[in-house]
């Protein structure tokens, strides 16, 4: 029997611990009966109850969900159209255009936040949900764009030719053939973007208004006054939501394979 612990196994466990131990600690403390985070006061749902009755936090959660929903809806449409459009371009600028569409993911968030702040101030826009949605849409588009583009690249182009050949005008070809085939990519891209939007702090911090605090921004600002155990509960809930979204997106792409 080979029970030796290989270096590679140890390495894997170490990495996983590094990634998930802090998360595990937060989850455990969200069920802590004591108010002090250093003392274990028994298992309790107290902080979850408090959380539900904390109208301020609940309002922030609502804002975050609305924001994620709106920005993802818009970017799903824009990103998909962009990806479909760019595969039809046969000229040399295509590579350049693709990079331009993906770069927002790589620009440091703090810079994007500054840029949006300056831009919206320049336009004299009132900071609030609209500026949030615009900023979030901008960084959500690349996720959907990349997913859909990859799917289209693997699609047999003769399928579209066949539909045209059978008499379908280009719009029908898109609706009947292209769209159903890229739907899984659109969905999984959108879910990914949803998760990104839901936990964004930096960009939101720059473009949010006085009445539209999002949940991550709220948590961040509470850091100054110290983290309450309610935040642990909230984090646990958001973690659960994120995992759910990831699993859902995996299932979708698997099902359509």
């Amino acid at each position, binding site marked *: 029997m080979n029970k030796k612990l290989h270096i590679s196994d140890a390495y894997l466990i170490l990495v996983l611990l590094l990634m998930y131990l802090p998360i595990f600690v937060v989850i455990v403390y969200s069920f802590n009966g004591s108010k002090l985070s250093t003392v274990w006061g028994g298992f309790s749902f107290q902080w979850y109850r408090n959380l539900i009755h904390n109208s301020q936090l609940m309002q922030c959660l609502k804002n975050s969900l609305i924001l994620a929903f709106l920005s993802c809806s818009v970017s799903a449409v824009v990103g998909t159209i962009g990806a479909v459009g760019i595969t039809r371009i046969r000229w040399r600028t295509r590579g350049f255009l693709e990079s331009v569409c993906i770069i927002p993911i790589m620009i440091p968030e703090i810079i994007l936040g500054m840029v949006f702040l300056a831009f919206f101030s320049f336009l004299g826009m009132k900071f609030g949900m609209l500026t949030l949605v615009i900023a979030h849409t901008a960084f959500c588009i690349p996720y959907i764009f990349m997913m859909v583009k990859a799917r289209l690249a693997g699609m047999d182009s*003769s*399928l579209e030719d066949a539909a045209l*050949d059978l008499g379908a005008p280009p719009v029908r070809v898109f609706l009947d053939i292209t769209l159903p085939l890229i739907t899984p990519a659109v969905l999984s891209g959108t879910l990914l973007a949803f998760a990104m939007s839901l936990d964004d702090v930096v960009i939101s911090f720059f473009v949010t208004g006085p009445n539209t605090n999002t949940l991550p921004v709220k948590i961040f600002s509470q850091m100054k006054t110290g983290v309450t155990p309610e935040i642990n509960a909230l984090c646990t809930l958001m973690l659960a939501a994120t995992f759910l979204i990831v699993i859902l997106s995996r299932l979708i792409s698997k099902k359509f394979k």
Partner: protein
Amino acid sequence: MKQTILKLDNINKSFGKNQVLHDISLDVSEGEFITFLGPSGCGKTTMLRIIAGLLEPDSGRVFLGGEDVTSLPPNKRNVNTIFQNYALFPHMNVETNIGYGLRIKGVKKTEIKKRVKNMLSLVQLEGFEKKMPNELSGGQRQRVAIARAAINNPRVLLLDEPLGALDLQLRRYMQTELKSLQTTLGITFIYITHDQEEAMNMSDRIVVMRDGRFEQIDTPSRLYDYPKTSFTASFVGMANLINAEILSTNGDTVNARTSAGVISVLINGPLPDPDQSAVLCIRSENVLLSKEPASGALAADVTDSAYANGLMTTHLRLSDGTVIAASKYGLCTDFHAGDSVFVSFASAVIVDRRDNNEKTQ
């Protein structure tokens, strides 16, 4: 004389600097089974895409039933294509796939169902309505693709190497299937292949293509018996091409000097002029072997022989080093590798004539 259904008029097409079609002109009559035969890269698929409307020619016109359709998009042409990889819609079942063209035209659902059922029985796939394309075998997908195209009653059906992905046995079977389907439907078939056997078995006429030009357009038998060029001769069937100097003609027989000696051979088709060089195309079955010398026969050595499909093929090396093939039906054990034999030729055709416009009779 049947009516012309498709007319190509001086089609030219280039991709960048590479001209793939040169002045292509052709008339196809109604109900004809016409095959474009050529090696890959000869421009046959490009031409098919131009007929389908998926590509626009740089110059020249396409007429369908007398109407100029050159600038019509594919969805407005009454032409359907069977694609090389079938291009069945993976997210639709067999019934929806086949009925797609009718659905686009706005045909009633009950009517579509009925016609799909008829079509399925025609291609012998009864009961396959609800199957998805990935549940079908290659041959079944092929039939669905045919049904999906044929259900729209196109004036012309374009087939882009549709049997290429099938194994040999199924390919042979599908050849007869396709031919009988074409007779049943009465639709003009334009078929593309690089497989000469497919072309010979099914076509009414074959267009041999080479480097974006038509090499020869003829019936399969004439193509075999009277090839006009050495390319056609060697692409269709086994051919021995021998350069010769014509010495004299005597009726239909000529005496010619080859680098391996003087031969005397019957010429099919137009005779060459004396005192000129010519390329003789001699089919392998017209090469006769004997152990005895005769006038007009050449000495040769047997290099190898093989017996396949009832055909005995013997390779011979002439005194100048030229290797030629002789074939004969039935097993023949008279000649072995290393034997010295005498070769005479029953008949030949002159190919690569300088005056290419001259009609073969």
